[in-house]
């Protein structure tokens, strides 16, 4: 799949540790991200953000002249874009949950380079998906913008539930999504007893996207666990 447009996104990186900044830049550059600017404190970050107009913020929680949470609020008040936190404190996980601060994701240090790239790509894809409307599958294409599937030149509309399910599967393309996570995406929290409905919806999605719905190649069942969407080029 073509994610090159994501590599052009402007990323603002804020951390007080020079070594860490350099390392993250090198990881990002290696993955062909181009537009990266760094700041070492809240003050610098706000000044840089004025001109740079970032499309993704990667912030440390503890900064010499403030904390990342308040910086996020200030950045978001100017312009709304996704924020990823890098934190050295495991307990911050609780904080994010407790306060619902509006961060898009967080990574607890230390992290693996591929983990960082995966999370950044996932956030960007989620936030800027409308710029890449067509998702290529082996036998069809999904147009999330119009909630349609294009198969053999034919346009097939997706229902709301099918759209929700496919969105979750696409966000986790190539990875298994559990039955429970899919039910939650379609029917809200604490979904019990929707397994059969889910199977029915999956069957209908397959009829729309697969060449042969009884032998699926794009939407794979992982027995007892969940489903996996195979996207071309991924």
């Amino acid at each position: 799949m073509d994610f090159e447009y994501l590599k052009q996104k402007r990323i603002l990186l804020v951390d007080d540790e020079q070594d860490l900044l350099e390392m993250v830049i090198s990881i990002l550059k290696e993955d062909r991200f181009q537009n990266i600017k760094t700041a070492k404190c809240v003050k610098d970050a706000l000044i840089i953000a004025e001109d740079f107009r970032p499309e993704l913020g990667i912030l440390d929680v503890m900064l010499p002249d403030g904390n990342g949470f308040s910086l996020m609020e200030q950045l978001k008040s100017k312009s709304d874009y996704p924020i990823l936190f890098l934190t050295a404190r495991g307990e911050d996980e609780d904080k994010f949950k407790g306060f619902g601060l509006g961060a898009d994701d967080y990574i607890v240090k230390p992290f693996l380079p591929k983990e960082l790239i995966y999370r950044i790509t996932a956030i960007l894809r989620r936030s800027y998906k409308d710029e890449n409307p067509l998702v290529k599958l082996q036998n069809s294409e999904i147009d999330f913008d119009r909630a349609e599937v294009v198969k053999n030149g034919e346009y097939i509309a997706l229902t709301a539930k099918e759209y929700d399910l496919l969105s979750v599967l696409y966000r986790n393309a190539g990875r298994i999504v559990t039955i429970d996570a899919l039910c939650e995406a379609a029917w809200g929290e604490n979904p019990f007893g929707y397994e059969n409905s889910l199977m029915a919806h999956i069957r209908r999605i397959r009829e729309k996207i697969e060449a042969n719905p009884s032998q699926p190649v794009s939407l794979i069942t992982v027995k007892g666990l969940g489903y996996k969407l195979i996207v071309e080029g991924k």
Partner: protein
Amino acid sequence: MKSMPKLIRRFIGILMLSSILIIILNFVVLAIIASNQAPNGSPWITATEAAESLQKCNNTYVFNNEMNTKLNKQNVWAIFIDNSTHQVVWHTDNLPDSIPTKYSISDIASLTRGYIDGYPTFTGESESGIMVLGYPKDSYWKHMWPSWDYQVIAHLPQTVLAILACNVTLIFFIYMIANAKLLKSVNPIANGIQNLSTERPVYIKEKGVLSELATSINRTSDILQTQSRQLQKRETARANWIAGVSHDIRTPLSMIMGYAGQLENDSHLTYEERKKATVILKQSEKMRNLINDLNLASKLEYNMQPVNIKKENAVAIVRQVVVDFINTDIDSKYPIEWTTDENLSSCIINVDRDLLKRAVYNLIQNCINHNKSGCAIYVCVRVENEKCVICVEDNGVGASDAQIQKLNNTPHYMVCDGNTTEQMHGLGLLIVKQIVASHHGETVIEHSSYDGFSVKIILPM
């Protein structure tokens, strides 16, 4: 305070019993005294004997010598009144002058009942007359009107019982009133002592009969509170220290992992060099896991980890962990098989979602850590005896009986107060045990039916 009424009941029981015993004892003593009086001889019997001892021979009266002596000894005089003449026909030598020698029938009735000139008199009959004994003045008190209403005698047993009952009730009330004050002051002290064992702070008003006891209980409570505060402080300090160290290690370790990760994939390096980077990366990951484990284990141990218990679907939680592993296991060296019954779509338990996830994660990671050459992992959720059983097994190298015994029973070095020279198992299982314990569950380590190692988490539903 449950034992107080019991105590009071016991006291009253003893009191009642002793009252009854005392009454019985009194009766016995009375009976003994009365029976001691009997051989002393009722003067009536003596009078009858005296009457029999007087014989009439040829118009003279002969009195038995023995009886005479006996009467003399007691300073008793005697007269014999003839039936027909009402004259005194015989008398002892010691007869006082004031005693008349002739008696009318009414005189006889009166002397039988009472006295002659202040001398208590007793009568004994014979064929020809009546023997009258006169005892010294003030030696006997005679009951002059010896008659009772029949009903009084007929109801005597009931009357006695009723009086006894009244007495017992009276004693009971006297006791209650006298002791109410004492009981009142004992109650808060008893409550205080009971509360001491619950580690709650205790304060009792220091007044009343038992104020000294109250003071020492208050002081004991203060000491206990101070000690538990100090202990808490020390444990908090220890957990904070571990949290601080692990925090400070995270940023440098990020750098090591970041660059090692890049070097691992650097196509400009030789295969050997990239392999070295992989080793650095793997070991750094181990350190990262160790830091995370150490932090969580210390927090769980010192009750500093918040446990947010909610109703959750255990099947969904375990399924998510399994899927996370499958999604990251690229070379499928550790295939995970989901062996949960397909019909079991939910198993609702009260649990902290993140902690349970962590426990299952640790169990699967354990299988991976201990089977370097790969193994199949079997994960299953089932309901057994109204309990939720989460089972993680593998077909790997397994463990010996002795090792399993040790894993089940030996405390971890982190929570063990003995010496720790012996190398014990890692933190992974300790955390599982801690998490399960915080949910009032049970951890069972055993051989797997797949020839490897098996850990069961049993949680109440």
